[in-house]
């Protein structure tokens, strides 16, 4: 079960974020199974990690960009991308 599902999104205002983007900070929430929220994306999403040390994940969805700051999530994606 993805740990993403056990996280809670807290809206933030990322300084320096490009126009048209939204910054979100993800923090651990109570353990439990992931559930889609009413605002959950219903279209393809592209995830982009530019700097493996920064803990920042950029999500391209529709005509928006969502910036997520979550070292743990980024680490797990990097691990998955590393294969094996």
């Amino acid at each position: 079960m993805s740990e993403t599902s056990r996280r809670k999104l807290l809206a933030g205002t990322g300084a320096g974020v490009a126009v048209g983007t939204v910054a979100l900070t993800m923090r651990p929430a109570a353990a439990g199974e992931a559930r889609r929220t009413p605002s959950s994306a219903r279209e393809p999403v592209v995830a982009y990690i530019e700097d493996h040390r920064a803990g920042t994940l950029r999500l391209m969805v529709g005509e928006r960009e969502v910036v997520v700051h979550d070292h743990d999530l980024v680490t797990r994606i990097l691990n998955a991308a590393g294969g094996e």
Partner: protein
Amino acid sequence: MSSHREAPETAKDPVADSTDVYAFVSPDRPDTVTLIANYIPFQAPDGGPNFYEFGDDVAYDIHIANQGKGEPDITYRFKFHTAVRNPTTFLYNTGQITSINSPNWNRPQFYSVTRIKDGKSKVLAPKLACPPVNIGPRSTPNYADLAATAVHKVGKRRVFAGQRADAFHVDLGSIFDLGTLRPFENLHLIPSAATPGVNSLQGFNVHTIALQVPISEVTRFGTQPTNAAKPGAVIGVWASAHRRTSRIFDPKVGAYVGHGPWAQASRLGNPLFNEVIVPMAKKDGWNAHRPKGDHRYAKYVNHPELAKLLPVLYPGVFPNLAGYHKARADLNAILLTGIPSGVVPGFQNFTGPVESDMLRLNVAIPPSSSPNNLGLVAGDAAGFPNGRRVDDDVVTIELRAVAGLTIPLVDPSFTPDGAVTAIQDGTSNTNTATTSTFPYLGNPGGGYQTVPGTAAV
């Protein structure tokens, strides 16, 4: 040139490569201003079966700055959609196309026009038709009449998007061969015999986005200014093309699919700015930046590389220019701030101290009854660098300005070299004639009837 393939990235992305931008008070409707942005350079008219078209995955913007901040105060956005009517044929057209709604046109293109102001978007027209390209007399007979039906009225505005003849002329082969100017070949560091200039763009087409709007729609106070000395009489104009931040190749359909916000891939204001002012290593970054940040490129305007090269390439021809080492306040004004009052008698197109590359048009100056294609430097204040008309010879104007012709406007102690007023690139305008009415650019050359390397037919 003026911005054809001007940067490494845009050279590889023709549908997002803006070639020229024009802004002028409409000569036949002087209560309106015409804004034109051309894309897709060097279109051979016979380039089928997949003829040229706008990018469905590109957002095309024409911006107006009227507050002196170097930021878009009004944006007109054009987005395109291409259809395939008959999926069973390889043909662009399955018979004669005698109307823009013809079922024989297998690949029609449509577009929306959106006006963005104060962060609010309003769709002015959701679906307008482009004309087909000019294929030939069998496929697109009476092309001029056919294309004319693609001039749409949207309220008090007129809009057109489709193929036209390129109006720009320049001797690319000569200039990019170590700065050769045909009139001075024998004086070049590597001399050769004089030969006639070659119009490199002769016979090629472009794709044009043209918009004609009431002047009162784009000015600071929502009026039609009559006093050219007032700051509110000047608008800044530039175009930009945008691609989605992320593109994923979808092998199921064999095409890229875009995701994320629109990001600026190219822009164009003054002709030749990115082409001959900005260094190669900075060109792609310049295309991605907004004009407001152009102070970072001011050093290349103030001390242009071309002005240093001319005396080297033509020994003894430009001694006064060679000895001039001050910052080029004349070029800074022409390209980055507009010309303040008091420099050229009776004229100004100053937009304030924010250095930003854009065309600057004083809309209170009426169209000229006898236009001079050398514009302001020849005493015609309705022409470049007061905006830009389709027939303005911007290559000659800018070559002469860089060579020192305009220095005395701001530094009377300087005397231009005698050769300056003779500078040109040796070409004559052998392009298809422009027209006296909207969209002003001539009909595109036809694929059947145009012989490569010759004037369009």
